[in-house]
């Protein structure tokens, strides 16, 4: 069975629950972008070129609060830095020595937490040489599917009943916090999540335009140095 078979197996992954959760989160993002007066074409452009919800939220946060571009870049970069260790963890299990780098660069554009968790959990059932095809099948389908749903939702989001919009907006924090907690590998990851929650309101109060950057740097540093001081979370 070749790559095409496993690509299609990846495509069939679209029927799983995390896909629904991410898509609903992105529908929530569409409503948020609509509220922030960001046009449909810009919203689609953000989703397809960035393809990482936390980065997208930092970006929109910066676009609406008139933050200088350098601070937005710094915030987005800090939110996205997790992709480096994520890719370093998963790539040795799916690349083979003959895969050209540009192919990896294209496929890894679709690397985000949902596809990472989905693929990593299933690699033991996929032959090593077909894992790249399997991952690409899933992550590409996920991107196309959720972008279509998101774009449709953007156009009708003013007609949603308020209770539905509130429910949607609430999926993002709960889905991402639980997903990140679940995919955390060591205590430092979990400790950093807790520090982020505690520090966010403090820095929002004292330094609203650079609060996220400070929360990341200070909370992350604290988690790094205290990671051996607490028992397993």
């Amino acid at each position, binding site marked *: 069975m070749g790559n095409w078979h496993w690509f299609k197996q990846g495509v069939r992954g679209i029927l799983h629950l995390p896909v629904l959760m991410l898509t609903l989160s992105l529908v929530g993002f569409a409503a948020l972008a609509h509220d922030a007066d960001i046009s449909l074409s810009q919203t689609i452009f953000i989703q397809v070129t960035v393809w990482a919800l936390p980065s997208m939220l930092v970006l929109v946060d910066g676009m609406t609060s008139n933050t200088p571009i350098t601070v937005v870049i710094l915030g987005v970069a800090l939110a996205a830095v997790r992709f480096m260790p994520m890719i370093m963890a998963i790539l040795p299990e799916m690349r083979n020595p003959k895969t050209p780098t540009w192919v990896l660069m294209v496929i890894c554009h679709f*690397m985000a937490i949902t596809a990472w968790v989905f693929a990593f959990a299933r690699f033991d059932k996929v032959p090593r040489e077909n894992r790249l095809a399997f991952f690409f099948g899933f992550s590409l389908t996920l991107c196309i599917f959720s972008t279509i749903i998101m774009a449709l939702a953007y156009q009708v989001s003013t007609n949603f009943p308020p209770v539905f919009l509130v429910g949607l907006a609430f999926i993002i924090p709960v889905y991402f916090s639980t997903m990140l907690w679940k995919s955390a590998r060591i205590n430092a990851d979990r400790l950093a999540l807790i520090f982020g929650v505690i520090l966010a309101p403090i820095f*929002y109060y004292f330094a609203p335009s650079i609060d996220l950057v400070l929360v990341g740097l200070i909370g992350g540093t604290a988690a790094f140095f205290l990671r051996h001081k607490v028992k397993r979370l």
Partner: protein
Amino acid sequence: MTYAAWMEGWWPFIFILIAGALPTEIWRWLGIFLSKNIAEDSELLIFVRSVANALIAGLLTKLVLFPTGVLDAAPLGLRIGAALTGFAAFYFIRKSILIGILIGEIILLFGGYFLGIF
């Protein structure tokens, strides 16, 4: 220079590419290039992952505490209560993301209903 500096033409798209896509993509590329050389459990990687996790947790907390959109229809106490209960349900019931979301949503929406908001 901000997003609102020039609303016309190509500027918003260039802003998105420079401020959103590039600073995200750069880490994906670095991950590819470094995946041959750096151990995944190196001190540096643990540190960068900690910074990223803290920042994202801060972002998610801001979405609950200081929502800019529709979520501010629900009062602050209800939002905090629903988020904490949802996460606790996830934590204590088999680390199930679905259960966490369902419990959080039930508290938020029924709470809002009984408070007469929806």
